[in-house]
């Protein structure tokens, strides 16, 4: 139950970070066009995107992220039961690979269209992958801490 809860929190964390990347990439471009971007607009846009990408989209971003992230992290978790020593690094890498796979493979499902606009650039892909890494790190730190506590 604890693991399941950690997976959901980890996915939520990655979702928030990916929305942040998406909003930032948009606002950075608008700023480069001379549009007046201020701190209020940044927060407003971020929260609107967070709600919009999860409630207005046909496929909520959170669900889109949950799927590969949970599979990836659970693979590492299963390896733990098989006696392989768990390290936070493995979970972190698993989270990064899951999101990298998502942003690379998603356009293939949509005829090369990038459904997450912020992932169209290499920088966007890198930052989203880092989001996955952070999500994996969070989950890994919870798992490793739990394992040490039970020992």
């Amino acid at each position, binding site marked *: 139950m604890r693991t399941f809860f950690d997976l959901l929190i980890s996915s939520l964390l990655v979702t928030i970070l990916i*929305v942040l990347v998406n909003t930032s990439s*948009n606002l950075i471009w*608008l700023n480069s066009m001379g*549009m007046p971007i201020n701190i209020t607009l940044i927060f407003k846009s971020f929260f609107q995107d967070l709600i919009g*990408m999860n409630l207005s989209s*046909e496929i909520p971003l959170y669900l889109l992220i949950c799927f590969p992230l949970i599979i990836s992290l659970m693979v590492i978790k299963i390896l733990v039961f098989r006696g392989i020593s768990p390290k936070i690094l493995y979970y972190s890498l698993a989270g990064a690979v899951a999101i990298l796979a998502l942003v690379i493979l998603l356009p293939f499902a949509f*005829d090369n*269209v990038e459904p997450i606009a912020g992932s169209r650039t290499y920088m966007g892909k890198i930052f989203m992958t880092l989001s996955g890494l952070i999500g994996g790190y969070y989950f890994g730190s919870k798992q490793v801490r739990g394992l040490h506590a039970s020992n």
Partner: protein
Amino acid sequence: MHLIKFYLLISIGFLSICLKSDTVDFKYEILAEGLNRPWGVAIVDNDHVIFTELSGQLRQIYQGKLIEEAVKGVPSVLYKGQGGLSGVTVDPNFKENNILYLAFSSRDEGERTNTLKVIRAELINNSLKNIKEIFRAFPSRNTALHYGGKMTFLDDGTLLITSGDGFNYRESAQQLDNHFGKILRINTDGSIPNDNPFLDKSYALPEIWSYGHRNPQGLINHEGVIYGLEHGPMGGDEINIIEPGKNYGWPAITYGKDYNGSIISPFTEMDGMEQPIKYWVPSIAPSSITYYDKNLFSEWQNNLFVSYMKPGGIRRLVVEDFKIIKEEILFSDFSRIRSFKVFPDGSILLATDGNGGEIIRVTPNYEE
């Protein structure tokens, strides 16, 4: 109680009179059916219609009958997503020279990319002859969406072409070094008119006439006024008055949101960027625009008509001083309508979208 009934009856009677005043009865004649995604339509005269099927066929209807055999000699097209044989327009002197223009998506040879092309050709005996490529959008793209591909002639005989933003390349609509999200103007031989607006800018492509467009799906010239119809994102479909050198804002300003629910831009207006004369939120997915200046449907004279696909129908728009002052939904019993055109006699052509699409001629029903 009787008083309430009395008022109700009076109200219903008044309402029915109001509705009747705007209602026109129609007769429908199906000119062609079972079509493979009819898309662009050009009306030569009351007896001759030329239209494209997105899958790559150019077809003709002559004297109310579909010519079974597709026009021969049409270049192969990339039929994928929104790509295919999309736009068709006939030369203003078609009756004398048989020249027409086709816009279509084409795969780059040996590459995985594709682009929008426009060719000019002569239509002789149901076959295209003397084909010449007169425009090729730069750069190519790897998506099969947002091509634009609508064309119209200016009064000086030059050709305007719409070119969409390719979906993934939306920011390019604000740069002048590419054809994404632009309306372009060329001579009919493919050369560049010497008064195009950005010729003095070394970094700008010379064909560009206006920029900041998303996926322009309609373009008409009515007495020198160019109306552009823009298929927006989630919300934000627009009608613009297109003028040379102007920036129409996409994606820096928009009334729409991204399909993933995120904001494309928090701005809807900005100095130096044009405002639409009409926009729709939520989106109606507009597909073509026409100005009705005939007498047959006298109630509709000098109105703009927009065909749309969500959920499907026609919007009649009353225009006054370049402002839309009234809007009416027509033909909503049809499904998605891809094209709306007017015959010289004032009757109307509707092309329904999708596989099994139909070309329908609409005339007033005087029998009542």
